[in-house]
């Protein structure tokens, strides 16, 4: 497990984020709200598309990975609090680099996500560092379906 303060991170560290099964119902619900293109909504239209069948919106896939990342951190924050340790202030995301969707996510697919620390650097604010973490999603057949680098602020441990 990687700690929550900036100093707890090290380039090259990896951690699993957990897995999520994408149901047809959830794929359709997300698509109806945010990405109502035929290949995310309609099996027959999807069969004729570049995807060759219904698949999740790429924004759905990455949003689920965020949920898993946040859940893991929430558990860590809770554990710190129960040990009477104050968790670090939460940092905001600054952006994303090199987001790739390699293969479609189909109804019933189970995607396992992991993270890898790729970069760490100072910011203009002495109390925050910027961490680049590569989030990678792999399906039940071992095929990479998506990857992106999330650039997020992490609080520095007070001296």
């Amino acid at each position, binding site marked *: 497990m990687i700690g929550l303060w900036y100093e707890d991170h090290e380039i090259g560290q990896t951690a699993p984020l957990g897995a999520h099964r994408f149901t047809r119902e959830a794929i359709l619900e997300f698509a109806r*709200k*945010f*990405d*109502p*293109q035929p*290949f995310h909504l309609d099996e027959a239209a999807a069969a004729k*598309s*570049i*995807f060759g069948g219904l698949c999740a*919106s*790429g*924004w759905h896939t*990455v*949003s*689920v990975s*965020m*949920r898993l990342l*946040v*859940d893991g951190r*929430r558990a860590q924050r809770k554990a710190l609090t129960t040990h009477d340790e104050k968790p670090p*202030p*939460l*940092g*905001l*995301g*600054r*952006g*994303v*680099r*090199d*987001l*790739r*969707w390699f293969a479609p996510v189909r109804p019933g697919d189970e995607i396992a996500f992991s993270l890898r620390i790729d970069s760490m650097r100072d910011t203009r604010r002495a109390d925050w560092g910027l961490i680049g973490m590569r989030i990678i999603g792999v399906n039940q057949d071992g095929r990479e379906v998506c990857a*992106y680098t999330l650039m997020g*602020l992490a609080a520095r441990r007070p001296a």
Partner: protein
Amino acid sequence: MDRLYFEDFPVGEVVEFGDRVVTAEEIVEFAREFDPQPFHLDEAAARESMAAGLIASGWHSAALMMRINCDEVFLRSSAQGSPGIDSIDWLKPVRPGDRLSVRRTTLGARPSRSRPDIGVVEMRFELMKQNREVVMRQQGAVFFGRRPNGETKA
């Protein structure tokens, strides 16, 4: 309106479209499902955070921009998904009541090497709020089907 193909996105074109007001309810609803951090969930907790008040998840902003792009462009086009996005920058917070629109710039266009019926269009999308401040910038590629032989632009 005409269906839009790869050929209908000339390099250098800048277009603005969309009008979507974001509510506190939908910010919280998205956050509960995908990004349950205090500054996306709860006004009081958000005020004490570095967000200084409730803000939309950056992924919610991306999803809302996708919806605007679908309604205004993609659903009347031959869009065939995206291989990826080079960069997303969350520049300013999106807050309840903000009115969002999109400015799209076509940066490049080339036929696919492997699929003669597909073209790749490089686009920059800027999500703006009511005062025209850019809150999110995104740059990446979109696949579009090429105009079939014989079909002419009206």
